[in-house]
């Protein structure tokens, strides 16, 4: 699959532009429309139906959907409504811990992750996939199961926006993922959008657990530029968003050690993702959302081929 991002769409999909869009739904639409403008075909194929309910026949209904058994027994025309079957159940797990509140630019990591999740949900629903969403920190704070209906996006966005900001708990991946996996009735694609700051063992174990249950895993690792480059100068008082610690220091004196630690962390995460056969992508919050989305989709497409 190839995609193209037009200059106009890119202009509006830059985080600064997206940030100016207040509602998450609008933001997600803007992202996806920008992406779709460059898509040639859907990445998803095939169809299946699953009985949903009976409905009284109305003019115009396809006669092939009339349930003749009911007409034979009750002499009333009912048509069978089927829930469109999809080959993809997309579940978006968005990290809503306190560390996701850090923002060096217009969007915090959580804003970026939520927009990305909404965009992915929009994209999935628009292709007839079922999409669900959950926001977690040390546990699942809010969730909505996967549905195919396009209107389901609203529910997803409500879940994402229900987090609010500030005063949140630290990340504990394993209990959150365990609790979530028990609510997933079928195997599907689970996209985890997180900064992965927190219980590192829990990430590995959680991914292993989901993988064992047959889920396809995608790990979108959202990091702020500051966290990757550590560009601070001058005496600075660092106060932990999740941890209660603080450090008063000259940041540049600690920069080398910090970057080494970050590199070790990223390397460890990549290794854990690889061990769990998890598709891992590192996304900077300064990266345009559409580019991040296209990169993700392209990667998925190449894996599918």
């Amino acid at each position: 699959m190839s995609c193209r991002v037009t200059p106009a769409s890119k202009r509006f999909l830059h985080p600064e532009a997206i940030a100016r869009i207040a509602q998450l739904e609008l933001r997600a639409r803007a992202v996806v429309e920008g992406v779709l403008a460059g898509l040639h075909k859907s990445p998803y194929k095939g169809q299946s139906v699953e009985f949903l309910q009976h409905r009284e026949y109305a003019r115009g209904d396809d006669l092939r959907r009339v349930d003749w058994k009911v007409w034979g027994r009750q002499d009333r025309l009912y048509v069978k409504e089927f829930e469109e079957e999809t080959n993809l159940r997309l579940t978006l797990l968005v990290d809503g811990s306190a560390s996701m509140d850090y923002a060096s630019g217009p969007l915090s990591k959580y804003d970026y992750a939520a927009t990305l999740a909404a965009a992915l949900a929009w994209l999935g629903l628009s292709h007839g996939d079922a999409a669900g969403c959950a926001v977690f920190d040390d546990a699942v704070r809010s969730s909505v199961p996967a549905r195919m209906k396009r209107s389901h996006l609203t529910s997803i966005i409500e879940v994402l926006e229900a987090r609010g900001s500030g005063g949140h708990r630290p990340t504990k991946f394993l209990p959150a993922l365990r609790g979530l996996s028990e609510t997933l009735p079928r195997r599907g694609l689970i996209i985890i959008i997180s900064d992965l700051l927190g219980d590192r063992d829990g990430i590995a174990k959680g991914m292993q657990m989901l993988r064992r249950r047959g889920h396809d895993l995608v790990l979108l690792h959202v990091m702020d530029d500051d966290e990757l480059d550590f560009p601070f100068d001058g005496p600075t008082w660092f106060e932990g968003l999740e941890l209660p610690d603080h450090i008063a220091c000259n940041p540049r004196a600690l920069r080398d050690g910090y970057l080494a630690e970050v590199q070790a962390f990223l390397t460890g995460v990549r290794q854990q993702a690889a061990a769990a056969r998890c598709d891992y992508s590192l996304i900077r919050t300064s990266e345009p959302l559409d580019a991040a989305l296209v990169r993700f989709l392209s990667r998925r497409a190449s894996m599918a081929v």
Partner: protein
Amino acid sequence: MPSFDFQSLLWWGLPLVAAPIIIHLINLLRHRRVTWAAMEFLLASQRKYKTRVLLKQLLLLLMRVAAVLGIVLALAGPRWSSSLAGMLGGARTAHVVLLDDSFSMGDTSGGSGGVDPATAFDRGRRVVERIVGDLATASGRQELAIGRFTGLAFPAASGSPPTFDLPLQSVAPGVVQEVRDMLGTLRVSEADCGPKEPLTAALETLGRGTGAGGVVWIVSDFRTRDWRAADDVADQLRQLADAGVRVQLVDCAIDAATNLSVERLEPVGGVPASGVIVPMEVAVRNNGDRPVRDVAIELREDGAARPGVRISEIPGGATAKQRFDARFETAGGHVVEARIGPDAVAADNLRTAVIDVVDRVDVLLVDGGLAAADAGVAGDAFYLAAALAPGSGAPTGLNPRIEPPRALATLDLDAFAGVWLMDVERLEPAETAALEAFAAGGGGVVFFMGPRTNPEAFNASLYRDGEGIFPVPLAGAVDLLADPTATAAPDVMVEEHPVVAVLSGQRNPLLSAVRVERFMAVERTFEPRAGSGLRRLLSLRTGAALAIEQPFGDGLVVVVFSTAAPTWNNWARGNPSWVVVMLELESHLARARRRAESLVVGAPVAVRLEPGSDEIEVDFTTPPQGAIVHVTGTASPPDGLVASLPTTVAAGSCAARWRRLDGTERERLFAINVNPGEGQLERMGRDRLDRALVGVPFHYDAAESLQPEAGVMAGVSLLKPLLHALLIVLVVEQLLAYSASYHPRSKLL
């Protein structure tokens, strides 16, 4: 131990050392707050680098404190004197101040009195006061010696060690007052003294110390006369500089106004005799550039004023003379003074002459034609005696005594004003020795040739290849051939010489009348030695010499190559010029004997006593106040028994009085005068001093603008090493700051 030129600056600046610490503490309070997600990485980095970062920060803080401290110390002017060396007495800063008190420092040019210093010497005293005051407040161990030029020069001349007015000692508060009191008593001297002897004393004084940082201050007027060709002084200064001594010249003079000096005052005739007019001459030098007109000269004889004389004009840089007649009725010493009006320098406006007047002046005439028994009988000597003592109508004071040659060995020749030898065949060794001793002691000797003169004997005993008293080798008597081409030409030609100056000029009828028929020729191969001082007085028309003179020792020898009697010439026969020239010649020879009688201020005054005749106690009455100095005569070979006054401090007449063993009292007067050359007030200035003292590192300041540098005052300056250390500290600070990442990122890139 370290000391500081600006101690107060140090106290004000030291609190600034705390500035980096305060800034550091303030920065701790001014942290930017960042709520940070990835704390675990930051904490891990801090755990890893905590010790290193802390150490760097401490070092950086230390470097910044050191840098501020270094700047404060540098501004405070630090210097170092080793306390250990100080305890051992080695480390010190020795200041030797040489104050010029020669009489040119009495120059009042530019001085208005009152608040302004009246003389250059006053300015010099103020400079010394300022130096002493600065030394008293300077840190470190300061030592000071103060000496005047005359105090250091004249005792040295008499064999005593140099005398500093303030011997080398540590500068304590009490010393400052002592120096001020001492300076208040100092007056400019009337002596003429250059910097050589004072610098010798300074070299000895500074050479005794082992500590570094010596300074020699020369507070003088730096006259051209003293410093123009001062190679030996330059050598001394170079020695001082090589020894690490700073040479500081302080010029107290300013451009001088006109200054006149009474350069000379002396009798110009023969030996003065009582009742005889003594012609005297006074010479005044104009040391300025512009001519001076109508200079009045006051005259005094034995303290009594007499009519003065005037000089109509003295061109700039020239000397004008004026003659006057003096007459003394009694024998003995008489004092004549000549004084001009006030000008820039007062000391050289007065000159004193002591005239030793005798009842009669004995002149020994040795006639070769006389036998011993013929003493007093006129031969050739008759004509000379007639010229020297014409008679009562024209008293000259001269008393010719005619003796045969052998009298030279028996008579005390020092009793005669001059010895004249006429037509002497030869002299015996004893006679020659006596004659040479007389001449070498300042006596005047005149030889007349004649038929008896034996050239070979003269050459052998008197000429002695140039070692004897006779100035030329003789060839023999020759006739002066008649000149066939110019019969009217005179036989005698006048040369440039004061004795015959009265006959010089256009054709002189008196001299033209002189006919020379025969004369004693000089060996043709003779060439006078360079520097022999041989001069012609008269020449013959053939170019041969008729009369010559040559110094011998302190005396003078004149040879007339013809006869005194009208044997080989007709000069003495009724020609007035004969009398004139002979009297002039007698005065000329007598003046040669008097030259040694003139003394300058500062020179010792010595009286030779006769053992067995004189008592050894001599009282010197010294100018200016007539203080009596009692001196005991001592034997001082080869002069014999001598009573000597080591030095004199002022101009005027000095009297030496002593008793003889027979009870009679003797007195001898000396004229003590300033050296008139010191009155030349032309200044060297910085440029000419630079040229005269090539290769000598010296510092030059005018007295009015002198600001004694702090570096001169004490110890070794630490400024340069401190600045180097400061530079190193700043570089290390920058490296540490870079290493500790305190530099802005933009500057790194």
